């Protein structure tokens, strides 16, 4: 006696899904499927980008109080927040890459920050202060590694007119160029308070 054929319900989940997807539609025309697929694709892509952009907004960044009451407050006191020309740099302008693939990597990294908020590593301004030096060092290192890429979204050597800068700024920018320094190596603390011990003095002991 031969073994009876397996019925669809006997297949595994993956096999059933594959069978459904792979089976030609007997109900919808190819054109309808393409149009529906296109619409769904655009919607999905839009939703993805919308969520990416939403998570780039200042509102999103300061929705947790350890950001709102610390670094955001400090940013408001700086030239990057209020200035003569009315150009404002907000959190993501300095901390999220513009290029898509770098941005995606950064967003994935950011989930780690959310994870640490959830598990309570940094979920209060006090804990943030305790970690500020390590966090700042991390940011500075990554900025240095990218040649201050996010600074250069707005600032470029080519469009910088040294003659219009103050005398010390002219000299320091020349020195920095000669030494191959990148923006963040001199401009730490330009938008936030510097952590205690960020440049520990010469220790005699």
């Amino acid at each position: 006696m031969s073994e009876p054929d397996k019925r669809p319900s006997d297949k595994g989940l993956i096999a059933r899904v594959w069978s459904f997807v792979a089976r030609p539609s007997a109900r919808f025309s190819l054109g309808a499927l393409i149009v529906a697929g296109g619409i769904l694709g655009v919607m999905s892509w839009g939703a993805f980008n919308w969520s990416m952009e939403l998570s780039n907004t200042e509102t999103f960044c300061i929705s947790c109080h350890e950001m709102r009451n610390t670094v955001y407050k400090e940013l408001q006191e700086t030239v990057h927040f209020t200035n003569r020309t009315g150009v404002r740099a907000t959190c993501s302008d300095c901390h999220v890459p513009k290029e898509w693939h770098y941005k995606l990597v950064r967003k994935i990294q950011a989930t780690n920050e959310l994870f640490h908020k959830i598990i309570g590593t940094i979920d209060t301004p006090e804990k943030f202060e305790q970690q500020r030096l390590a966090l700042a060092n991390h940011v500075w290192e990554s900025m240095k590694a990218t040649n201050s890429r996010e600074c250069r979204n707005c600032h470029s050597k080519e469009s910088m007119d040294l003659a219009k800068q103050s005398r010390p700024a002219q000299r320091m920018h020349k020195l920095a160029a000669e030494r191959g320094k990148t923006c963040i190596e001199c401009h730490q603390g330009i938008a936030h308070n510097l952590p205690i011990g960020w440049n520990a003095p010469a220790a005699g002991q």
Partner: protein
Amino acid sequence: MRHVVMGGASVVLWTASLCGLALAADPQAIDWSNIAPKSLTLFYPGESTYDWLVGLEHKGAKQIRQGKACISCHESDESDLGNTIVKGGRVEPTPIAGKNGVIAVAVQAAHDAEYLYFRFQWKTNLNREGRMHDYVRFDGKGWKWYGHDRNDKSVRAGQQPPLYEDRFSIMLDDGKVPRFAQQGCWLTCHNGMRDTRNQVVGDPVKKHPIFSEAKYDADIRKYLASTRTDVNASWDKTKTKDEIAKIKAAGGFLDLMQWRANRSGPVAMADDGYVLEYRNFDDGKNPFSWNLDRRTMTPLYMFDAAKVGARALRVEDIGNPAKPGAIIKEVNAVKYDPNAGWQVGDILPGRLLSRIDATSSAADNDAVFGSWKDSTYTLVWRRKLDTGHPGDDKIMKVGGTYTVAFAIHDDNVTTRFHHVSFPQSLGIGVDADIKAVTLK
């Protein structure tokens, strides 16, 4: 006998035996030609007090408040800064005509197991040593002050000659004074001090609960921002005595040593002090004190004519390297005789020096030799790494790295009319801005 040349003239100072100098510890005996000098540019800072640095006029105020280093904006800027400020302007409301903006100093350092040694060389603006200080002149009736610093009203008005000692100062820290490695002596310079904005003198000082004590003068001198309670570190917003004592006990003070061409140089010493709530002197006795009762303006000692050739100087002797600039109790002094037939124009130093009277921590810098030749000072200096006085000295160790800052008072000036360096790291046998090389 050891002879130290001051201004080209041999002046018998002190014997090697009395100095207690073993040859190995004599900074004059070191072969400095084998030690590479570090060139520093000391510049004229004008009235750039700490208050000014954190104020609206200073573009880098935020960076200063954040604790950033002066050189983060002003690296290699000393010449421009000094030459600009010295001409007068927003940080120099009262410029001194003819003053130089910068002084180049060659710094060499060495050490052995016991001592740190320095050698400094710099050119002076004036074609003579500034070894005159607090002189008094007999006017036929009594003794009156003669000469002042160049900022004094009487000197600016041409009524008195510019007479004030040259100085070389060292500030030293071991990392316990916050921000000294970044901002150096600017942490100690504030509005309200002598010759600064809103200078405070007399009653307001002596009525202050802390400065009413007799050990403080009736004016404000260097102090650390850490001893004050407000952001601007105002002179009168002091922490409590207990709080200040705690900062001191924790080592949060700056060592400040000054070689003084009149008040310590002639006895081959530098003074020893510290900056905390005020510019204090260390425990013990300095090599200098007053040579007159300032209430009656009566001198205490005069020159020993048998040794010096006269009981007093004359105006024309000032600047003559063959004549002594100071009265040294154990070398060239005898008790003042009011009936010695004083003539109009006789001049006596208003300060009395004594090496043998100097004691304790105030006498730590006991082998500091300065000479002036062809408008150039050469100053060699020794200091124990561990003075044994941790209460008011910074204790150093071989292999340690410290922070130093230097200042020169040149050409008859005092207070802020000096030239200063940005802070420098000093390595005792290890690499730093200034490396004290290990003597074999």
